[in-house]
């Protein structure tokens, strides 16, 4: 039982590590979930299994929502989805899956965007005096 519960929470997110500026990248997502449609019956007892699906998938880039999708019971089990994004600055990609019961889970990945000259493009501007610059 514990193993099954754990299975419903495993998520996968594939984002390329680096990209050129202005390039269109693909983001692949996969959630391991039963996606019970609420129509199936138990063959012995005839009891309908209660509906449990992933309703909502949100993608955010640097905290701003760039893509959203509503799902209904027609999406297959272990739902796979891939979509596109335009790489302008390097930053954080977050994908959030929200359940029918309001449970949400998320996965994040970092993408580095380079200039044509091979220079990193970072969204925030750092002061000259700050010591963070050496780290970046």
């Amino acid at each position, binding site marked *: 039982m514990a193993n099954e519960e754990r299975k419903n929470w495993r998520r996968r997110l594939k984002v390329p590590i680096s990209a050129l500026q202005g390039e269109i990248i693909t983001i692949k997502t996969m959630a391991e979930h039963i996606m019970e449609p609420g129509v199936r019956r138990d063959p012995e007892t005839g009891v309908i299994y209660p509906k449990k699906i992933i309703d909502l998938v949100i993608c955010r880039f640097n905290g701003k929502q*760039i893509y*959203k*999708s509503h799902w209904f*019971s027609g999406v297959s089990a272990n*739902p796979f989805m*891939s979509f596109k994004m*335009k790489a302008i600055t390097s930053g954080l990609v977050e994908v959030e899956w929200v359940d029918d019961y309001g449970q949400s889970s998320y996965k994040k990945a970092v993408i580095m965007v380079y200039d044509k000259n091979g220079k990193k493009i970072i969204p925030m501007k750092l002061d000259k005096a700050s010591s963070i610059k050496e780290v970046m």
Partner: protein
Amino acid sequence: MYLKKNILTRRKFFNFILGFACVFSSKLSFAEKQIGSPFRDRFQSYRQTFRIEPDPEEAKRIVRNIIKGREIREDLIYLKAPDIAENGNTVPISFSVNCSMEEQDYPKIVHILVLDNPFPEIARFYFTPESGEASVAIRIRMRTSSNIIAIAEMSDGTVGATKSFVDVTIGACS
């Protein structure tokens, strides 16, 4: 003592009937909108659990409510689906919208519908100009061999739609 309050007069009786008639007529007039609208009403999940037979009329109603009598643009959205799907549980489909992703010209919502499923609506995708290209791949369930319809609602109010027929050998339970 004679209590006048509890007596059912003719006036009260007629008022009662008239009120009932009003409530019923209003419910009937709203019913058509509620069932066909792509948004879920409160009893959608209930109906979905217990209505197992597919209703082709409802699918048509949903499509009509999305398009709303607008002209359908051609060559706007391309849907890629297999001709024959062996397993109805996972049918891989993908679509792409032919547009420049600018403020005036990007798809706000893309609907995907399978007409012969018991619950015909499958997914809705919301795009923004930041998502550089409106193309998505997803796997869906299909009960019988039927048409898949993809409808794109653009930001300037125009609509594009395509459909493709998929032959399913083993249907899914959805």
